[in-house]
């Protein structure tokens, strides 16, 4: 974990996902897989061995009809800032080979596939189950290699992978800005595939530190919450829900705790 | 592991951790060098099975 000098102008990319808008259609999952060359198998029913950087969970309030309520919760990597936002996210601090890194310029937790040797300690450390192991080598249906994105390297058997906030898009946007003589990129120049694919507009992506970005105000909403905040992982994914039971489902509470 | 690896930083964590490691390795290395060197002396210069006595 290379210490970098903190910069007041540092970005902190994050997401705000409005659960009241999410219909659970799964477009974000499909877009993510296509964008990031995520491998798949013929049988994808065993979710514990399949790779879905973005995964939509189905939550219920546990009540019987007619009080049953359903909520769909899309869950990418939370890009945790760790305790005190020092970049010591649960996974980064444990990786023995420095194969996962916290970028202090963007707040993005990266995964270096060619550096990872597959010890899976990061998976054990992540409480969100946001990390996936390549139990098999990727096998693409005939001809599909032609459709793979040239901007994202495909991963081999035996390494861990996870959501990168489509970091290659950030790099492309930065390159374009540099070419055009600009020092910074606009909000719309860097958007993740899932945010763009969501037909309900439930996913908003941007710089949580930039008051000009939509996420800056959205995260201040009184209905905003993050998953497992009590663990002090400091995730960068905020969720919005007007329903109290959903907000409460975001964290653990003692039995007699309000 | 080595100062020329690009991850290396001259901070307290690296100095303490790698310092401990290299300290242990040096003791093991020097210990074995002494044993082998002394054995050569005992066997081929002092020339005796019980050259140490």
């Amino acid at each position, binding site marked *: 974990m290379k210490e970098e000098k903190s910069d007041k102008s540092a970005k902190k990319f994050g997401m705000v996902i409005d659960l009241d808008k999410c219909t659970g259609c799964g477009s974000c999952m499909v877009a993510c897989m296509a964008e990031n060359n995520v491998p798949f198998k013929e049988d994808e029913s*065993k979710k*514990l061995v399949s790779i879905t950087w973005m995964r939509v969970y189905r939550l219920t309030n546990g009540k019987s009809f007619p009080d049953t309520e359903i909520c769909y919760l899309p869950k990418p990597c939370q890009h945790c800032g760790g*305790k005190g936002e020092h970049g*010591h996210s*649960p996974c980064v*601090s*444990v*990786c*023995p*080979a*420095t194969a996962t890194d916290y970028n202090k310029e963007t707040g993005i937790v990266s995964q270096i596939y060619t550096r*990872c*040797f*597959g*010890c*899976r*300690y990061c*998976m*054990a*450390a992540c*409480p*969100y189950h946001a*990390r*996936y*192991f*390549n139990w*098999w080598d990727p096998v693409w249906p005939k001809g599909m290699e032609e459709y793979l994105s040239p901007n994202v390297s495909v991963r081999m*058997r*035996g*390494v861990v992978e996870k959501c990168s906030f489509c970091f290659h898009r950030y790099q492309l946007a930065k390159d374009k800005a540099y070419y055009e003589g600009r020092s910074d990129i606009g909000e719309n120049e860097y958007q993740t595939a899932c945010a763009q694919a969501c037909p309900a507009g439930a996913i908003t992506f941007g710089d949580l530190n930039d008051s000009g970005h939509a996420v800056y105000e959205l995260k201040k909403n009184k209905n905003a919450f993050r*998953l497992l905040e*009590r*663990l*002090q*992982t400091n995730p960068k994914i905020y969720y919005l829900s007007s329903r109290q039971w959903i907000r409460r*489902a*975001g*964290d653990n*509470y*003692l039995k007699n*705790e309000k | *592991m080595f100062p020329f*690896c690009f991850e290396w930083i001259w901070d307290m*964590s690296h100095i303490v951790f790698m310092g401990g*490691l290299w300290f*242990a*390795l040096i*003791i*093991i290395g020097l*210990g*074995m060098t*002494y*044993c082998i060197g002394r*054995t050569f002396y*005992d*066997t081929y210069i002092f020339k*005796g*099975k019980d*050259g*140490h006595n």
Partner: protein
Amino acid sequence: MDSKIISGELKRCSTWQFALWISAAGAVLLWGVYAMLLCWFKGLNQTNMNDSYGFALWIWADLAIIALGGGAFFTGFLRYIIGKDELKNIVNYAVIIGFICYSSALIILGIDVGQPIRGWFIFWHANVHSMLTEVAFCLTCYLFVLIIEYIPIILENRRIDNIPFFHNLGHNMHSIMAVFAATGVFLSFFHQGSLGGVSGVLFGRPFAYREGVLIWPWTFFLFTWSAAACGPCFTILITKITEKITGKRLVKDNVIELLAKISGWMIGTYIIAKIIDTVYWIKVTLPATGFGLMDFYSNNPFYGIWILVLEIVICGILPALILISEKGRKNRYGLIIAAILAVLGVCINRWVLVLQVMAAPVLTFETWQMYFPSWQEIATTILPLAYGIIIISFSYRYLPVFPQEKELNPWTINGGK
């Protein structure tokens, strides 16, 4: 056939009997090697691990055998640093058992990683903040120390000892063994501890997470302590099993009892520390994360509160009491039962801090995950057992492992078989 290599005055079984015994262990070893090759060539899809169980049977086996191998460093510490001279009669065997445990752990780690060819990255691209890095460094270095401690025992072989160079080398290595033993203790303290730190630092996993001192969680100290406490019990247990199989007494009772007594006090003090740690975890650490104790011991088919009681009371307090009491450790059955319980206790401790951590859900909308290892995982975990039997068998047959063997078995001397 091989009587010229066997120490002249020691009686050993016939070559054919020995070959048969080794063949049986070798068959199991080959089964394990076959499973190992499957994992290497086909990948970890040969296991029943999954994204919830990134750590599973192998990591438990690693943690458990390293704890049990702790008998080597602690006996070495007592013998060479503290100066408990009686223990010279068991320290050889403790070193051999330690060597088997540590080399096995490295073999299992070599199978467990997804890209074994990149295994050297852990050294080259070391992240000094990771407990696993500390484990890898200290474990590898300590294996060097164990090899150095094992070499003089090998050099004492009848034929090898006749070669002046090796005779002198053995003597010179013995003369500075305290330096190697001290280095071994230093390394062991850190790798046993950092194995505890592996789970203790997981602040995203409330079942495993513990507070601590500086960068080290309490589990760091508890693991070192428990390895030093229970490792000697494993040495005693294996010694007793060896005596049973060979039909000979190999170590005098006073030596075993001294080790048992020290082990008893170590287990006793460890279990008090473990109870304090558990109470603090239940009262302070857990509630801060929104979890109650029973969240981790209910609503699943396996992990009940019984496992905590079994670990602390039956496999902690009970063996400590037996071994601390003179009557208990002098009683043949008392000693064996206490040693078995202590070994079981440390294995359960490592189990819950690996497997139960993976099983328990943290997100409210996830559920407990159960896991049963595949035959490939089981075979590769049994592999070290067969490997250990083979190493011990060869060492016992050809090396003077037990200095008291001649004295304790005068009627077998000059058998020459």
